[in-house]
């Protein structure tokens, strides 16, 4: 009797398992088709000579050596690191400052939150086109109009090799900083007010409270957001594509943009495009690994 009961139970369990997998199946098929298989395929494709969508023959690392041997790759690699550098310089501390500022306000806090978040909702492409008119070199360009009020003569911004990358980062920061600031605000709101009260009673000034209570509390969050920011800026692609087409003279060409050019820029060389994509993935994996290694060490010491 009990054995029969057990058997029925296992059969019901098996049936439940199969049913569950059937429910997950559509989602699994889509994840396979849109995410997992393409990821795997892009690694495979980077090792093949391709003609249109067909793999012609296995060529080992030829795609990589041929891609990396070209000047535009080195330029793009350097530019991508330059994007990352500027992004950290301009875009890392700003959201923390915004969050601190908004956190101190009393009246109108939700208004400020809403306003800084607004740019994040706008379509990235529209934002880029909007700002391209802003930085336009014509005397009708908005920045030229604004600076003209102070007597600064009209000049061209996007054709200066040393300015394009910082300008693109300023635009990306304008769009994204508010959303990041809200994440920091959530982190800061979890600090117990009693800590501040206690510190104040002990005579700690506002600055010391920021230095010894607020900043340590968001340090871990800042670390996570830092690595996410690096990962996302490393893949910068459509911003320079639309704003400067990689120019002037490849000064703003990014790695992912180079990948797009190989694939869809006329030559349809999917093998080489995948080689660039895989290279970017590898660099990102190494950076993530370094980050988690540092992180592990830190938590060991704590």
């Amino acid at each position, binding site marked *: 009797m009990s054995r029969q009961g057990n058997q029925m139970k296992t059969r019901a369990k098996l049936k439940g398992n199969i049913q569950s997998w059937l429910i997950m199946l559509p989602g699994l098929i889509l994840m396979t088709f849109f995410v997992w298989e393409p990821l795997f395929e892009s690694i495979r494709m980077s090792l093949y000579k391709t003609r249109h969508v067909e793999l012609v023959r296995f060529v080992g690392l030829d795609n990589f050596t041929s891609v990396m041997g070209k000047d535009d790759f080195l330029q793009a690699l350097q530019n991508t690191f330059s994007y990352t550098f500027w992004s950290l310089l301009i875009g890392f501390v700003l959201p923390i400052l915004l969050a601190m500022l908004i956190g101190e306000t009393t009246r109108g806090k939700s208004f400020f939150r809403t306003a800084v978040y607004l740019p994040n909702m*706008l379509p990235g492409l529209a934002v880029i086109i909007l700002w391209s*008119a802003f930085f336009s070199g014509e005397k009708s360009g908005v920045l030229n109009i604004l600076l003209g009020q102070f007597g600064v003569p009209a000049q061209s911004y996007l054709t200066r090799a040393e300015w394009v990358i910082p300008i693109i980062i300023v635009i990306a920061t304008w769009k994204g900083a508010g959303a990041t600031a809200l994440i920091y605000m959530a982190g800061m709101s979890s600090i117990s007010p009693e800590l501040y009260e206690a510190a104040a009673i002990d005579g700690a000034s506002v600055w010391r409270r920021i230095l010894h209570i607020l900043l340590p509390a968001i340090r871990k969050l800042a670390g996570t957001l830092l690595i996410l920011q690096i990962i996302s800026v490393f893949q910068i692609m459509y911003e320079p594509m639309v704003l400067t087409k990689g120019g002037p003279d490849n000064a703003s060409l990014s790695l992912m943009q180079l990948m797009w050019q190989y694939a869809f820029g006329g030559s349809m060389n999917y093998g080489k495009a995948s080689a660039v994509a895989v290279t970017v993935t590898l660099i990102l994996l190494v950076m993530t690994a370094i980050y988690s290694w540092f992180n592990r060490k830190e938590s060991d010491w704590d």
Partner: protein
Amino acid sequence: MKKIQHTGVIREYDLHAPSVRVGYGFILFLCGLMVVVAVFPLVWVTLAGFKNLKEFVSSTSIFPESFSPEPFATTWNQLGIARNYLNSLISVIGSVACALIFNGLLGYGIGILKPKGHGVVKKLVLVSLLMPPTISIVPLFMNIQKLQMGNSFLPLWLSFGANAMYVILFVQFFESLPGSIIEASRIDGCNQLQTFFHIVLPLSKPICAVISIFAVNAAWSDFLLPYLVLRGAEKQTVMVRLFVFSTEQTVNADAMMRSVVFAMIPPIILFFIFQKQLTENAVSVGIKG
């Protein structure tokens, strides 16, 4: 009155010190400046839309000579933006439906049903969250071509059914639901699919709302995959059209600014309707952006 309490580093008693009071005034000034920086470009682009081409390229004033809506109407009609709006609408509706159904069911499997081996799927989803999505755009485009799904909305809709971020959000929410309710529905004789549609989904309105808002915005803003897939002019969405304008430079600068305004209007409306949900949930979903 909870609202006027100081919740930050600066507390009420600090404001007795004049230096802190000055500093506090400075903070308010900076916050105001921040709002101006966030909003000014939008105001400017709208004002620029009122200018004709000659005025747009030569005028050194931010304000247009006249506020007649005629330039907007002309651009709308000449470029046939209504068609693109309709296409974007089709793309958005299908994408949101797929985002909710497929990611929801997968999340239900991982978060509630937990069949044998679900841990592997959960890990795979987590890993794909770390993988940059643009990297696989080439093979993905090849897959779509091989299945001859080019020039159709179907692959764009379905691509929203495979979003690791949405799956994780569903899983997190489902895991917080009380297990007793799901157990009860099972005892009442609901099968797993019925439990999902009659019990789990109605309880999940908050997370469905958040994911819908983000899927609407993402589907509206997306242009790389749509540009590759929707090659025919009759199916182009607003964003694809704008991308074509910007790469081929077939429209004048003033019409371009009006197109930008057209592209921004729906997200801005969406934003003002759902601003509370958005700013409150930015924490959980913001990492994605």
